[in-house]
């Protein structure tokens, strides 16, 4: 079993930058394109994913020695589904105000590739504490990606930010439509790749 050698803060920033789920790993593109039409949507889905990712990663990491390797994928799906259901029920019962906004997003999460992938790649091979930090990093990375996409699309498409009117009209209606989602994701990936290149060159110069 190959344990990670990264420190907790490295794990956190790993998810946010060098392995950002949307812009670097290109996972969970469906919600990234479909739902990121406003900043608020991005925040709500991001927070929902963060919670499910942390709970699922911790669960799998805690019971990894008891999972038969041949049935690991069904077990991951089962774990995610359980946490999604529990979070959905608890929100609906005790935080109705938040549920009203987040309800539809929470139910979507079961099928998210990013969560299953993190369980398989990381939580199933590492102890509890690093798994927790990896999950937090990935969750925030996803949140960051969704909010960035949401901000770009909301400002350009609806002329608003978090619902506040900035321009007073809809500048480029195209940005709210699904096709623009791919456009913006592609653009952000290019920026991330370029940043990666710049960092590598800086390191080479130093070395």
């Amino acid at each position, binding site marked *: 079993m190959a344990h990670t050698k990264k420190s907790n803060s490295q794990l956190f920033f790993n998810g946010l930058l060098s392995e950002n789920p949307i812009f670097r790993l290109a996972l969970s593109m469906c919600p990234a394109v479909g739902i990121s039409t406003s900043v608020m949507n991005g925040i709500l889905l991001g927070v929902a994913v963060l919670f499910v990712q942390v709970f699922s990663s911790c669960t799998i990491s805690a019971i990894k020695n*008891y999972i038969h390797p041949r*049935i690991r994928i*069904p*077990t991951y799906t089962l774990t995610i589904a359980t946490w999604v*259901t529990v979070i959905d029920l608890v929100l609906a*019962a*005790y935080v109705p105000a938040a549920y009203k906004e987040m309800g539809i997003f929470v139910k979507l999460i079961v099928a998210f590739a990013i969560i299953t992938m993190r369980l398989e790649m990381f939580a199933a091979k590492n102890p509890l504490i690093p798994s927790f930090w990896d999950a937090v990093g990935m969750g925030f990375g996803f949140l960051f990606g969704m909010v960035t996409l949401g901000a770009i699309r909301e400002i350009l*498409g609806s002329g608003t930010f978090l619902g506040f009117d900035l321009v007073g009209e809809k500048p480029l209606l195209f940005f709210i439509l699904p096709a623009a989602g791919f456009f913006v994701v592609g653009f952000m990936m290019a920026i991330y790749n370029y940043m990666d290149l710049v960092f590598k060159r800086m390191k080479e110069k130093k070395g």
Partner: protein
Amino acid sequence: MKQILRITIGLIISCLAAGTIMGSAYVFTAKAKKHNEHQKEQDTMLGLLGYGKGKPAPSALKLQSIYRYVIDEKGSKYLGYMFPVKKGNDSGYGLLVITLEGKFHAFHELKITAEQALDAGEREKALAAVLKGTFVYSDETVAASMDGKRVAYLLPGHFQGFKTFIKVMLAVDPSYDILGLEIMEHEEDPGLGGDIVQDFFKNQFKNKSYQKLKQLEVVKEPLPEEYRKALEVKKGAMSQEELQRIRAKYQDSDIYALTGATISSKAVTDGVKGMVKRFAYRVEVLERVVQSQKIPAAF
């Protein structure tokens, strides 16, 4: 063989564990969830009648549900209305069955308490006890009355939107003029058709008279700026007289379509139109039968 057994047992155990966790979460939260849903509906109803935070509803205000069922008895269809009735000092529930032509067919008293009537399963049990044929639940209407006088009807309903159904709650006064519209659930495109929940769209329906509503159209013109300001109710943004003037000016205007979402705008307009028209016809038939048969209705 040993492998298969291990895998099977492993899967069974994990499924059992997951099921237990989900099940217990459901048991603990079910009651609170149901309560919240009911509360949300009640709040929406009161909000449409103009009550809310800072202006609580008076205790004289009574909200009573009328449930409509479609009954099939020996191949012929009837409409069944279940509503509260007076029984001496107590109040109970009764089921009035009328033919599709609007003639009286039968009246049954139901053994059900007001508390039980909130639950769909309990209602069906009570109905099955008195009816011979099969029946299907159709819809609910809430009659609001104050000191024995009818003030409004609240109509929960749904109609086809751009993609799937739009669930709404509509408030109309006894002469079927619209008091307000609230969108409960929808899946229109965010940023486009999703704007049907915005005040500047849904409040256009407010105060439309029944006469106007019958021929309400959707116009593809930009929403006048002063009308938009009057529709987005912000406190202190506009003097009371100014508000009155603008409201009167646009009283008989058609619905201004949302930019880029003509189909959603038209769906809501036609849906509301249909809901009110059908309701007006049904409630008139119901009132006529109730009066001619001297049924002690308590709604």
